[in-house]
């Protein structure tokens, strides 16, 4: 047993505090906008200047000129506002994001992470990731614990070019919830049916439990 992607999203959402402004990256993190927030008032910000968006639109109800950072057509919640890209990133660099949730290829015990450039590639895809990583109050990472080949994505140090240094607050994987602790990762929660031994076997650096 381990967490599905939706369960990973749900587990991260439990960490959100009432009133937070949350930026969701492309890919897995976009699922978070579909998770019920209970009585917490959470404001979703997309890098393209959409403040206060909600769930992905039901087919046929889309406004084609309204997308989130992943290009999905979403709804606006009451009180939403739209700004241009410079103002959107002004909010990001200005420290107004309580958390940014991003996918990654690798995350390291020293809080570095890598999500913009593959091994051996000449170019990459940065998007807003470096701005968000540098300036959000917290950086939460969602990723599969292992690569398709079974290698650990949680590493002592990143092997790929990093997106930002020493910024990661929390990491959720299919196996559990972790916080980088310098030498390894502190275990904050285990997916149901997963043992500490399994996590340690799947991870290329110490797990502090």
């Amino acid at each position, binding site marked *: 047993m381990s967490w599905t992607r939706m369960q990973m999203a749900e587990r991260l959402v439990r960490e959100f505090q009432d009133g937070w402004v949350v930026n969701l990256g*492309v*890919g897995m993190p976009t699922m978070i906008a579909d998770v019920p927030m209970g009585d917490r008032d959470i404001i979703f910000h*997309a*890098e*393209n*200047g*959409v403040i206060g968006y909600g769930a992905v639109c039901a087919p*046929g*109800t*889309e*406004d*084609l*000129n*309204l*997308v989130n950072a*992943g*290009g999905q057509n979403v709804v*606006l919640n009451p009180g939403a506002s*739209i*700004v*241009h*890209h*410079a103002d*959107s*990133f002004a909010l*990001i*660099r200005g420290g107004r994001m309580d958390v940014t949730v991003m*996918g990654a290829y690798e995350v390291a015990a020293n809080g570095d992470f890598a*999500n*913009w*450039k*593959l091994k051996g*590639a*000449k*170019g*990459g*895809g*940065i*998007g*807003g*990731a*470096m*701005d968000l990583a*540098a*300036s959000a109050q917290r950086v939460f990472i969602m990723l599969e614990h292992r690569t398709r080949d079974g290698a650990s994505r949680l590493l002592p140090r990143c092997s790929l*070019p*990093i*997106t*930002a*240094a*020493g910024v990661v607050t929390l990491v959720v994987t299919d196996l559990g919830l972790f916080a980088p602790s310098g030498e390894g990762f502190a275990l904050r929660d285990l997916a149901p049916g997963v043992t500490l031994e399994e996590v340690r076997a799947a991870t290329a650096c110490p797990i502090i439990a």
Partner: protein
Amino acid sequence: MARNKTYPDFDAAVADIPDGAVIAIGGFAGPGTPYNLIAALARRGAKRLTCIANTTGGAHKPRMPDIGMLVENGQVAKVICSFTAATRASDVLPFTKYYESGEVEAEIVPQGTLAERLRAAGAGIPAFYTPTAVGTELAEGRETREINGRRYLLEYALPVDFAFIRAARADAVGNLRFHRSQRNFNPLMAMAAKTTIVEVEEDILPAGAIDADDVHTMGLVVHRLIRVPPPPMGLWTRKREAAR
């Protein structure tokens, strides 16, 4: 004697774009992308262009006019954008192979830095410091500075010859309104450009029809307006479902 900013068609609006021009192209994942102007630029055939945009175009089908197409057309010397490859390894951008082979140069810039460099160019700010990309490969060998205990990277303004943008609504003097996330880079590129060319989704209104408090981009920085005709002449004019 107000100058008439309305152009009869897209080809006329891009007819004077010379080889070597710096072109900024608005849009983010569809909304606000000036597809018709990109297509006109491909027909015009100007070469050795520098293209500035968030991406060079997606990997999705059906393909819409994008920078990748201008690259395939042999018109582009350099792109400046926040993606030179897709983040998903399985998505291959048409642009990537030209970049990897060295046929086209690329400068990859974090999206917020790209926006701010355009904004700076429009604001007469030649350079600024930003926390973004400090400690990464992008900052290697470049000037950084410690201010109040934090390290920042020096970034320069990105001036533009021609901005291609798309708006929902315009009046005769070029005041613009964008609908929803159509806004994105468009207002910044208009500010950064010597000449701003706009494809407009609705009939162009008389001056004063947009209230002064409701203008998103001021006509002062807008030079040419073209009404997007119905498909297939006008690209991406599908009806928007949601109310304005």
